[in-house]
């Protein structure tokens, strides 16, 4: 595992990836806390895992298939009613370009 912990630039970069907007105060706190937590995580380096397979899931599962039988689903009206930001059956979003 890399020994390098994170800098303020990393905090800004990760926030950008995660679509978050941190103020200066938050950046300062997170920089410290994230470094603490990440250095604790480096404890895993004590273990040699060279020949160990990763586990992403504990159960032995196969893909599940079922017959393609049409069933009623939620109506467009129901789904649209979850937000006030809709028009003519479309979600309204801010301008993209």
């Amino acid at each position: 595992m890399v020994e390098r912990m994170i800098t303020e630039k990393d905090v800004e970069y990760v926030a950008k990836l995660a679509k978050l907007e941190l103020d200066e105060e938050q950046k300062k706190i997170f920089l410290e806390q994230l470094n603490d937590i990440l250095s604790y995580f480096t404890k895993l380096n004590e273990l040699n895992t060279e020949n160990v397979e990763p586990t992403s899931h504990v159960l032995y599962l196969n893909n599940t298939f079922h017959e393609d039988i049409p069933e009623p689903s939620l109506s467009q009206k129901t789904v649209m009613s979850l937000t006030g930001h809709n028009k003519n059956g479309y979600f309204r979003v801010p301008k993209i370009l």
Partner: protein
Amino acid sequence: MQLNELKVVEFIEMVRKKKISVEQVINDIFLHIDRIDQKLNAYLSTNKEGALQEARKIDRMVKEGEKLPPLAGLPVAVKDIICTKGIETTCASRILQGFIPPYDATVIKKIKDAGAIIIGKTNMDEFGMGSSNENSAYQITLNPWDTNRVPGGSSGGSAVAVAADEALAALGTDTGGSVRLPASFCGVVGMKPTYGRVSRYGVIAYASSLDQVGTLTKSVSDAALMMNIICGYDEKDSTSAKIAVPDFLTSCQGNISNLKFGVPKEYFEKGLNAEVKEAVLKAIEKIADLGGKIEEVSLPNMQYALPAYYLIGMAEASSNLAKFDGIQYGLRIDENNDLEDMYKKTRTAGFGSEVIRRIMLGTYALSSGYYDAYYLKAQKVRTLIKKDFDEVFKKIDLILCPTSPIPAFKIGEKIDDPLTMYLTDAYTMPVNLAGLPGLSINCDFTKNDNLPIGLQIIGRAFEEDKILRTAYNFETHFSSSDFKKPEIQV
């Protein structure tokens, strides 16, 4: 005795024998909630009118001699992370404020079909991220045994609702101990089934490979009854297991003299509170007295479970929570009519600081250049943790250990130090990494502060029956005077 103090098994029998009406019980519950919940804050929202309507329906069925479903009229509290049709579901987060699901989670459909009535939605750490309930965006639930202390998290509201007789039973979810830890802190029975046993469809995901729905109840039989209803394959959840569900109430019966128990030495090392240690060792002696064969075992990689668990949990969380973008439901903050700006403002205002912390760490662990070092490494360590359990379960049937290294701690004690808070999950989260079932049952109280102490029983995958049988034997060993209730000053 007030009707809200009934256990599930007693309630079901009394309704069938027409000794009580469901409406009476629901009324008693809401009277009690009105009296004490302004102090305890277990509920985020309640469903009084809906509950009374359902109650009258069941009472009519009883009167007309109709066949009753298994949980007919049972008042249940539901953690606010589980989607309930027509009832606001917020995950105790601002980002989902006002979200009213248009469908029921499978587990809700199952308990409703069984006749249960939803009393309300319980408080929790936002999205299940926390061990104290202090990470709720709305309120802090207090521990009924000492209102200066936390109830444990993240299903703290569900545990308190049951411990303080504000519901007869409750549903929670357990990603790293979120059912068992609050059960331990509040002195109730918390059952976390095997991963895949209960459908996660409609349960808002925190860490998909770890999350599992569980029950909080006043007794082991109550847990068994609830498990009978909520377990089973669901085609809507691709990780749901196609494995037969036994009658857990029947499997409680019988003695434990043919069962072998392992006590992992790593759970009794430094960091374990002396009173918790003494109480759990005493409980293990009791299980030996009941005929269980006890031996010491070792889970050598246990010290690496916590960092592996948090890395995997945070990585999955960062991915799962990417869907909260302000567009289709929930909070939207759109000040500058700019898409990117709306995403950022909505998410930053909508998520609390612990959620942001985990999204940040998870995003970092999955980002280019760090994936192998953090996420892949954690997944490999997960394999080693699982192997440790596999090895131990070749020799023994069940593991006995403390649920938590400490009893309930004070509000504010750990909230400013995330890493210290994370350590609270040290004894529960290995079970989630390995996908195993586990249960917490009260085994004693601390001497000076009178705080509950939990014994944890861990089993092989899909062997909840043996866990429940052990817990049932342990529980019946106590005399009724041992079942203390918290005294709540209003």
